[in-house]
């Protein structure tokens, strides 16, 4: 009788340890993430603030070398297909922003040396807005935009 009680206690203890370990594991990633993932930029409520926090500047030059391919009218704001292509040489990063979203910064792509300035993705849009692509090249920011009319918002707000 005692024997089974021992076993029961042991297994309960073991389970307790596992739970604690999971708890600790759940906490650590957010701390690790904060170091690399630019949280301030992603929670910024304006495009300028997001760019400032990401690149330390918010002045962008409109460029015809960037092409933003998005639909004129998006029926479903939850899935708006966006393609960005740039013929610029030395493009280091492509940043995708939706100014009318609560947090405009959608995604940022850091390009490797051999990678073309070409990205496709799908974004959520709360309401009708521009989709802005910002390309960083030789220490300067260049941008292009495309207006997308959204008939059904996609951010659940």
């Amino acid at each position, binding site marked *: 009788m005692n024997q089974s009680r021992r076993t029961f206690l042991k297994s309960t203890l073991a389970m307790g340890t596992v739970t604690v370990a999971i708890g600790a*594991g*759940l906490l*650590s*990633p*957010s701390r690790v*993430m904060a170091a*690399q*993932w*630019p949280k301030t930029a*992603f929670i910024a409520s304006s495009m300028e603030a997001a760019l400032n926090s990401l690149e330390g500047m918010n002045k962008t030059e409109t460029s015809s070398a960037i092409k933003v391919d998005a639909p004129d009218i998006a029926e479903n704001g*939850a*899935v*708006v*297909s966006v393609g960005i292509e740039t013929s610029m040489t030395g493009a280091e990063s492509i940043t995708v922003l*939706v100014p009318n*979203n*609560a*947090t405009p*910064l*959608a*995604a*940022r*792509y*850091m*390009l*490797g040396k*051999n*990678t*073309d300035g*070409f*990205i*496709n*993705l*799908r*974004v*959520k*849009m709360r309401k009708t807005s521009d989709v802005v692509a910002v390309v960083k090249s030789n220490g300067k920011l260049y941008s292009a935009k495309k207006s997308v009319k959204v008939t059904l918002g*996609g*951010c*659940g*707000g």
Partner: protein
Amino acid sequence: MAQKPMKIRAWMDGDRAMVKAIIFHPMETGLRKDKKTGKKIPEHFISEVFCKHGATTVLNCQWGTAVSKNPFMSFRFNGAKVGDTVSINWVDNQGNKESAQAQIK
């Protein structure tokens, strides 16, 4: 957590490699409410995606909640040949991760 493993396709498009991938992930914004309980569903999204060609990083993505559910991505890079490996790793804000690879066709 991903319900289904992600899909990657990579092929040579002329002298460049073209990669398309789809990751199965809910990408919750943290703004949506659960219809039954009325409580907000906590945000759950992929924050970073690392794409490699062999051992070289070709693309690092930082994503926010505005990227759609089951994110699709595609990109292109030079200096690859048929048979090379393309690998994609992602982590989300809750510490889940997945990695997968594909051969360039």
